[in-house]
């Protein structure tokens, strides 16, 4: 028997208008961590869905342990020993851990046996998890453990992980890596999808790099510079945003003891947030998803009014002002969720420009839309931010994620804000577009506006921030100058491993 586990040979998959995978060929060996690298839209997802039986290739073959492998559906893939942890979890908040895991099984054992099995596996792999806890109460890192354990219960030969660290703190990432190393030493192969290069350099044995659906290179990550891998991914030299020297001015926006109840059942309450934001600075706010990022943006944008005196703008109390009154003052925001929050998917870009541009750009008169002016505004955003679309009459949902994000950010920046709050400005955006969005934020600060950048991407925050603060459980740490912060310090600000470290050491 050879050392090869899975061989992909000439896999091609085309969708109307786009070739997602083109003649993809590479091998995964037993007991290796194999990285699959590529930008958004490079075809990583299509490829792993093919391996997991969710997508059927147009041509090409796969071989699993010297036998032809053509899974008809994920169940067939699981039966062949292929398991996958998705980026977005499929768990029911109202059920407990064991019940959630039982739901995914074909012949679930009794709850008691299953719970014992879960505890056993979780201890074996250093992933502490109580089978009786309700999933709605778990942190993102713990939810991911549920998914991983669900896979491990099947004794997989190949474990596919799609961007597993995007929801974890640095300390949680360490725990995950230990688990993956243990799996590797037992002979399980891991296909690890990511675009975080440093991670791949520490963890992975081999890397295959995809661009526009094709394999453009393979390498041994530990021996390759991150920069070289990035250039393979992007297919050119990477533009790193430039920043002027920081020049903080007067305080524009000030939060004093900001408290707010969670707006929804699984939301996060804001707890006693104090913050001064100055002209010309970029304040980075980090944190693991679900620690109050959305709620903080809602409290600032005016969608969630707070008690009097908590939010002030140039000394004026704006805590109970509605969004358009805040816009009139110069406080603009770009929420995380593009489709359905920052933009209306079924409306045209013209209408989406009107959605926030009405107040400041004077796009209506006595309530009546000024057609020419509104169209001109949308066209200006499209042009200035290089939004790829046939024209402003197209519906927002016809744009790719990155292009819509450029539109959404550009729409706010062109309104010349005094304070701009962005949440996850480059989430799901390709590297080139992400760099141009970051550059636009820095340029805005250089012109004297204040920018609050909420993000889960620490590299991004380090790149743009003058000061850095972290949200943890709805509370905000004191901001510290971003220069000279180490990854460990940031990790501790983010709340460490959510109290799970101790359990891990015992295991």
């Amino acid at each position, binding site marked *: 028997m050879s050392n090869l586990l899975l061989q992909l040979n000439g896999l091609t998959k085309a969708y109307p208008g786009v070739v997602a995978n083109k003649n993809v060929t590479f091998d995964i060996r037993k007991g290796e961590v194999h990285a699959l690298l590529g930008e958004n839209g490079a075809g990583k997802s299509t490829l792993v869905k093919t391996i997991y039986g969710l997508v059927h290739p147009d041509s090409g073959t796969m071989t699993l342990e010297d036998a032809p492998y053509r899974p008809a559906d994920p169940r067939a893939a699981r039966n062949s020993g292929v398991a996958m942890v998705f980026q977005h979890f499929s768990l029911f908040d109202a059920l407990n851990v064991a019940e959630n895991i039982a739901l995914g099984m074909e012949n679930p054992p009794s709850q008691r046996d299953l719970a014992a099995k879960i505890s056993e596996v979780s201890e074996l792999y250093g992933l502490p998890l109580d089978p009786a806890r309700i999933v709605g109460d778990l942190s993102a890192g713990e939810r991911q453990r549920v998914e991983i354990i669900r896979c491990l219960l099947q004794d997989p030969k190949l474990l596919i992980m799609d961007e597993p660290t995007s929801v974890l703190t640095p300390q949680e990432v360490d725990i995950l890596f230990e688990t993956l190393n243990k799996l590797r030493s037992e002979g399980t192969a891991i296909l690890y999808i990511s675009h975080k290069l440093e991670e791949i350099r520490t963890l992975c044995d081999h890397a295959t790099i995809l661009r526009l659906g094709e394999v453009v290179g393979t390498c041994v990550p530990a021996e390759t510079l991150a920069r070289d891998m990035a250039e393979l991914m992007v297919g050119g030299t990477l533009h790193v945003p430039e920043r002027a020297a920081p020049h903080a001015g007067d305080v524009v926006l000030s939060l004093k003891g900001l408290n707010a109840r969670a707006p929804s059942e699984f939301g996060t309450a804001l707890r006693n947030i104090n913050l001064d934001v100055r002209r010309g600075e970029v304040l980075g706010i980090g944190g693991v998803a679900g620690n109050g990022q959305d709620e903080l943006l809602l409290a600032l944008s005016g969608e969630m009014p707070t008690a009097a005196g908590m939010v002030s703008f140039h000394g004026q109390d704006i805590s109970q002002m509605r969004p358009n009154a805040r816009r009139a003052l110069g406080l603009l925001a770009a929420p995380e969720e593009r489709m359905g929050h*920052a933009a209306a998917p079924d409306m045209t870009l013209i209408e989406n420009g009107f959605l926030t541009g009405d107040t400041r750009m004077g796009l209506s008169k006595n309530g009546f839309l000024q057609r020419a002016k509104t169209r001109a505004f949308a066209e200006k955003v499209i042009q200035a931010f290089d939004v790829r679309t046939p024209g402003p009459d197209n519906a927002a949902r016809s744009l790719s994620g990155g292009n819509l994000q450029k539109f959404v950010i550009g729409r706010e920046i062109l309104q010349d804000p005094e304070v701009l709050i962005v949440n996850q400005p480059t989430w799901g955006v390709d590297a080139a577009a992400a760099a141009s969005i970051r550059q636009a934020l820095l340029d805005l600060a250089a012109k004297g506006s204040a920018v609050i950048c909420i993000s889960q991407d620490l590299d991004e925050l380090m790149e743009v921030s003058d000061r850095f603060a972290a949200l943890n459980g709805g509370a905000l740490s004191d901001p510290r100058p971003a220069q000279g912060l180490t990854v460990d310090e940031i990790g501790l600000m983010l709340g460490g491993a959510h109290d799970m470290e101790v359990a891990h050491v015992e295991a």
Partner: protein
Amino acid sequence: MLRLEKRPQPSKVWIYASPLLAVVITILLGGVLFWLLGKDPVAATRMIFWDPIFGDFAAFYLPELLIKAAPLILIAIGLSFGFQAGIWNIGAEGQYIIGAICAAGVALAFYPLDARWLIFPLMIVAGIAGGVVWALIPALLRVYFKTNEILVSLMLVYVAEVLINAFSVGLLRNPDGMGFPGSRSLKQYPAAHNGDLFPNLGSFGSGIHWGVITAIFAVIVAYVFLTRHRFGFNVRLAGQSPRAAAFSGVNPNRLVILCMVLSGGLAGIAGMFEVAGPSGQILGSFPAYYGFTAIIVAFLGRLHPIGVMLAGLLMALTYIGGDAALQPLQLPSASIQVFQGMLLFSLLSVDVLTNYRVRVTAGKVVA
């Protein structure tokens, strides 16, 4: 094998084509229904859809068509705003009845004063006010107590039906009516009568009363506000993406109240024109389910003012043509309602084509 594929954006063609296709499907299904009942399907279809407009008695049916269509269009225009915003006023029938009671009450309070310049406008105001108040009940309950406006508005229809019965034998009963239920006929009270404005236009009049004029006016104003005004934008935005609407600064509670007031007011004014004209008196049999049929009209018309106008005319045609066909073909009277139901049903099924593309694929099994 047939497969549905989501379109990147809603098809512009199918938005307009699907109501037409739904009408065709309904006519075909109706034909099958008549055939099953042992009638000649072609003759029946012709009698319902063709004869009232182009037949020998068109001069009689066309004014009737306008009289039936006006309240349907008025009510449906109001409903279409709320429906676009996800605010479901199902109780337009109740608001229509209360509008009629209030308007007739005002008129009868002045009887027999002959001052049309005062009484007729007052009746309009009273009709609107009655509808608005009846619609504000579910609106305020939703805003302040988070009740479901569908249930509350629907239940208020039954309250309104009880009220009109009570008024027709109580407070508003005709003192000269020998004890029979029902108010004085407003047709015999010139200051309050909403009659044919051009009675000499055809051999049976024109059918154009103030309600028809108001309906046309409402269509135009609604069109302008829906497509050009911030209010229409907010309505569409709130219906498509409530979170984007909140982000854009739309106050959801204000929108609920505005949409309910609008639909209630239009239903009330429709009730006023009906009780002052074609119907003529407050009576237990006054409710004609215009308020419910208008829901079909609103959806059939794509919640768009121009579409609503066309759909209202079509729905009126099924009433008129159905009535005309009942006698000669000896159809059960429920068959018209079956017809209207089928129309809504086929529209909703054809609607899938707006957002999805049908693909025919060779059925293959992947091992």
